[in-house]
């Protein structure tokens, strides 16, 4: 299997043919990967160098927490990428942003109204959890198209609170 793996601005071509080796941009490494106690925590020996890292799938790719640094990694099947390119890619993804509750908690207030324009960084919702009031901000400019919560509501994690349109 070949993968195109991107971290920050760099992309690696990584080939995995057996359990004991990887080929990264043509260079062969000995590897030995073990999960630690059935957790998303891994011990990797790479040419005898020992690394421990959390490796978990996030919303937009794989998250690797390694020696205190977090890497957001996109892993794609190289063949799939090639096929997609051949089919003509380049779709611009624009759409609604759904603000989800990042944790369960109590809605303190919703300082915006439906139809209101918001700028990037504008406060959308104040959510109380673990005794802290957290200001949930807009990741981009847009218009509040739908509000699905109000002050006093108890919300679950990932519950959609409101939607920002174009």
């Amino acid at each position, binding site marked *: *299997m070949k*993968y195109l*793996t*991107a*971290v*920050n601005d*760099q992309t*690696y071509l*990584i080939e*995995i043919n057996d359990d004991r080796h*990887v080929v*990264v941009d043509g260079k062969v*490494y000995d*590897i030995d*990967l073990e999960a*630690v*106690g059935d*957790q*998303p*925590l*891994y011990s*990797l020996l*790479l040419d005898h160098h020992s*690394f*421990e*890292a*959390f*490796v978990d*799938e996030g919303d937009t*790719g*794989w998250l*690797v*927490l*390694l*020696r*205190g*640094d*977090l*890497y957001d*990694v996109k*892993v794609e099947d190289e063949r799939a990428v090639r096929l997609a390119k051949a089919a003509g890619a380049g779709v611009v993804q624009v759409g609604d942003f759904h603000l989800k509750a*990042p*944790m*369960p*908690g109590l809605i*303190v207030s919703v300082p915006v109204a439906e139809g209101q324009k918001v700028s990037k960084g504008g406060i959308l919702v104040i959510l*109380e*959890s*673990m*005794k*802290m*009031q*957290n200001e949930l*901000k807009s990741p981009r400019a847009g218009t509040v198209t739908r509000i699905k919560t109000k002050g006093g509501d108890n919300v679950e*994690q990932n519950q959609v609170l409101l939607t920002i349109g174009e």
Partner: protein
Amino acid sequence: MVTKVLIANRGEIAVRIIRACRELGIETVAVFSEADRNAMHVRYADEAYLIGPAPSRDSYLRIDKIIDVAKRSGADAVHPGYGFLAEREEFAGACEEAGITFIGPKPSAIAAMGDKAVARATVTRAGVPVVPGTEGEGALRDDEIVAIAPHIGFPLLIKATAGGGGKGMREVHNPEELPPALAAARREAEAAFGDGNVYLEKLVTGARHIEIQIMADTHGNVVHLGERECSIQRRHQKVLEESPSPFVNDDDDLRRRMGQVACRAAAAVGYVNAGTIEFLVDRDKNFFFLEMNTRLQVEHPVTELVTGIDIVKEQIRIARGRKLSREQSEIAMTGWAIECRVNAEDPYNNFMPSTGTVSASIVPTGPGVRVDTFIYSGYTIPRYYDSLISKVICWGETRGEALLRMRRALEEYKIVGVKTNIPLHQHLLNSHRFMGGQFDTRFLEERFQMDDEGAQRPEIAAILATLAAHRRGQKAAQIVRRGDRDTSNWKWVGRYERMHR
């Protein structure tokens, strides 16, 4: 007498106090909310009583229920820990009234220091320097505060009168920001302490937050245990503390003067038991009283490690009416200690609190490492309380050794299932300014970045992610393949038929 102590708290500090009691042969009584049945303090105490629903105001803040449990269980003393009721005059008073020893100062001292505005006025009279602000003005309305603000001058800090831990605190840089900031601060203060009163204080820039631990007994002795450096803060909450302070360091004269002023401030309110005087120290080593915390401090372990004094045991000793175990001349600081507060929050997503079940917790151990925590594998962190889940405290002969030890301890510490701010601490410990001791209270928020763009091992991360993705893909493929095999089908069919008999 102190033979059975009720701990009116939860989390790591409840565990810390129970441990001290156990080691003194004192029985312990825990109280817990409906969210805390599986908490460690419930398991480690000799007795445990449910006192109400999860929200603090229905449980850990209910003085009546706690006094009731103390009476039912026969506890003859109460340790309030920090937070919750620790600095509520009424609570200390209710204990006194019920004939229960409150392990802390007298209600009058809590009252005098608890209203931060009154406290500033009080110590000013005792000749202790304070940062200019609205001290001595009593509880002010918004319009009064708006009127006074320009006289103190911007930038300003709004602080909760009943405050602590950065809650209900806001910075204000110009008059326009003042009204909304006041509203936010009062709202947060009301939620956190049940008291929306606030006061103003001049914002000293380039300052350090350095505090002095004091201990006072009922025989009139007051000593100080040196200073703690607490300038590493985020949203006015301490994140990392050390003792000694790299700023004070070899300046024994400054330490002695701050210690003397701290003892004087304590004496001004007839203080008894352990307490902390917080100072702002400017670049020229002028120091100003900020407030006194009339209780055990979260960061007390760094002082314990450098002085060898167990502050909680000393608190109990004082509550028993004994003399302090050491005189000022017998107290020395040996080596260096650092504490990292581990919070359940995501340092990569605006420090959002993170809750959930801890599926694994591998604690750093070995020489010079102390961990004060209450989480364990399988424990679910409730969403109702503070995000502090663990404190890692390292001692070294020198600051350098303590820093290196902390680095290895944090690298070893593996908490799975919830996000923590351990990466923040790891970045801090790699920061040259931090290593050089070059920081003030604004450092963490203004001159420090959790920027991992330049992180050193993108290739390793790429390999790890690719291997994980590859394995997941293979496992998925295997499940499909296995589904086609006869043996497996037979098993399912067998079960299906058993069910339909």
